[in-house]
């Protein structure tokens, strides 16, 4: 157990945006919410997933919707309480811990705000080890854990509790409600026991995010990140074009980066649906989901989310391996490139990098 105080938030927000692979929402807004909540309600108790009792009852706390909308329509703050109260009421017993659903962007800082306001401990783990755009894309789905009952609340005072026949239906129904709420909702979902959490969640990802943020903020730059993430440099260049649309409650589009330095003459395009999905260099796929494709400021190593990405930015693109569970058949069925409509085989980034090094030699 440790206490998470305001000072840790800066590191965490930066690290979360790195792991958010372009999505997960703007970490700045989540950081402000968490800051305000900690100032009012005190620091948040963070526990490791191995410290949680078997019979604990926990749930994911997250914000759902399009990041492009989140930066304009910021949460009031009491929606997250409404969502948890609605879920607790449905479950008929108290929720003992909160867990971040993903460790990207707003969704790693927002649960801190929720934990502070609800005065509940936060589990240092998450269901993605990064950010993904859809509700069923959580490791508990692989273990047959239901995403519902799930509660959604908005800033206008609407709250819904849904129960669905499977986790893909959870995504469909919650997405249509979120759109009706105005494209953002605060959600509480995947109620699970401590034992289920230990089995299905990716541990210590808050700690990882804090580490990554600290490395960037202390000027250790991109090399420091690559070491901690066991990542690979993909490309360096200047953003030449960003095409971005809000479709079906998602920010979808493509960024085109023209190479500089060693990559001069080449073009890298990154396709995204809230998160970066596929990186293509001069027509050849160089990285795909579920591996992490991360866009960083070429100078500072600060992460850049899809809604901030703009013409002229000088960026470094890196890729890092995902959690091993995403590389299983069940994992790839949920979050592999084919699920997102790309007809390419998933090849782990380490193998792609090794093959490309061999090719260069």
């Amino acid at each position, binding site marked *: 157990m440790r206490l998470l105080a305001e000072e840790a938030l800066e590191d965490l927000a930066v690290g979360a945006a790195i792991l958010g692979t372009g999505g997960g929402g703007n970490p700045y807004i989540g950081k402000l919410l968490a800051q305000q909540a900690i100032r009012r309600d005190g620091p948040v108790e963070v526990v490791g997933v191995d410290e949680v009792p078997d019979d604990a009852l926990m749930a994911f706390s997250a914000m759902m919707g399009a990041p492009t909308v989140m930066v304009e329509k910021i949460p009031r703050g009491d929606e997250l309480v*409404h969502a948890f109260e*609605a879920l607790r*009421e*449905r479950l008929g017993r108290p929720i003992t811990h909160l867990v971040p659903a993903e460790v990207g962007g707003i969704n790693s800082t927002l649960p801190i705000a929720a934990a502070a306001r609800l005065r509940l401990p936060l589990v240092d783990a998450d269901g993605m080890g990064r950010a993904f755009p859809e509700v069923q894309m959580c490791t508990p789905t692989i273990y047959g854990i239901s995403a519902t009952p799930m*509660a959604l*609340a908005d800033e*206008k*005072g*609407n*709250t*819904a*509790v*849904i*129960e*669905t*026949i499977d986790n893909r*239906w959870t995504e*469909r*129904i919650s997405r*249509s*409600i979120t*759109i*009706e*709420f105005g494209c953002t909702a605060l959600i509480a979902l995947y109620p699970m026991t401590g034992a289920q959490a230990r089995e299905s969640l990716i541990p210590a990802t808050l700690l990882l995010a804090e580490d990554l943020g600290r490395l960037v903020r202390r000027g250790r730059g991109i090399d420091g990140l690559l070491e901690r993430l066991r990542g690979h440099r993909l490309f360096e260049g200047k953003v030449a074009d960003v095409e971005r649309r809000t479709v079906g409650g998602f920010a979808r589009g493509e960024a085109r980066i023209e190479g500089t330095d060693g990559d001069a003459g080449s073009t890298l395009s990154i396709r995204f649906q809230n998160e970066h999905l596929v990186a293509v260099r001069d027509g050849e796929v160089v990285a795909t989901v579920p591996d992490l494709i991360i866009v960083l400021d070429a100078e500072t190593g600060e992460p850049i989310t899809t809604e901030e990405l703009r013409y002229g930015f000088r960026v470094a693109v890196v890729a890092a391996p995902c959690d091993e569970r995403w590389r299983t058949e069940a994992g790839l069925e949920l979050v592999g490139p084919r699920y997102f409509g790309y007809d390419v085989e998933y090849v782990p980034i380490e193998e792609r990098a090794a093959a490309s090094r061999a090719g260069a030699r």
Partner: protein
Amino acid sequence: MSWEIVEADLRPIATGAAVLGTGGGGNPYLGMLRARELLRGGARMGVLDPDEVPDEALVVSAGGMGAPVVSWEKLPQGDEEAEAVRALEEHVRRRVDAIAPLEMGGSNSLVALAVGALLGVPVLDGDGMGRAFPELQMVTYLIYGAPPAPAAVADEKGNRTVLSRVADVYALERIARAVTVEYGGHAGLAMCVMTGVQARSTCVPRTLTLAKRIGEAIEGAGARGGDAVDAILEVTGGRRLFQGKIVDVERRLVRGFARGSVTLEGFGRNIGEKLSVDFQNENLIARRGEELLAVVPDLITLVDVDSGEPLTTEVLRYGFRVEVLVLPPSPVLTTPEALRFVGPRAFGYDVDYRPAWATDDRA
């Protein structure tokens, strides 16, 4: 007076409710089949007069939601509405004592009876519209103060959604509609958790009885060889608006609603004239060129010119010979509070409500 439904009541109720349904409220045949199966299986359907609902009873309104065109193709499982009521029961942690029909429509009148039978509780002789309307904020229970949340929507696959809080009645409509569309365009709905006192004071009373009388009048006229339209008007009041042949039906499925219009070419006393009726699930206005002849909440109903059988929007087709009737709405629908939600302006027509059922435009 409270009474018990027997199989012979189902067809007249469905037919009469379809007359009141003004084109919407679901298909009477489907609703009839569902209710008949239950009765044949030994279920009991009690009808409770509003005056006999105990003050402290827990009453919930239930009905099918969505576009009738969809339920015609994607047949309901049959227990979606009961599932929605069960979801609400779990939410409020109390069993319901009675079901209040959402609206009078060919299907939704009998759906309420089926829900009552499935849950083993009686059904209120009354409803939330006295006819059918396309949107939830148009329910008299809500207009006169029943709470818009909690409400529940359930589909035939086993998905359920409980709206535990809503910002207002319009949010209820929008969110429940979005979920219904995602469910496939048709869902069971339960809403308006009320006491017996609230149900009694906010409903349009005794509309199951009215529907049954209308249906029996149509059947009686058929058996006697009498005029079925005269028989309807005798029970309901109101008048004939237009007699014609359907020459065009334009129908689109827009955001979960069947929207469009039907155009009629007159014959008999209306020879040489044209009439069109615009609908959004239900018939909203009848116009001759730019002239509005009848507007909501007046009941604009199309019936077969010979048999008097009501025609719902999803079965309208070129060549049908119909009589367009204007029937009086319940006074519960014509108060200033109610007209804000069910008057012509609520549907985007910039005119005041003027009753058309009493006047004769040929005079």
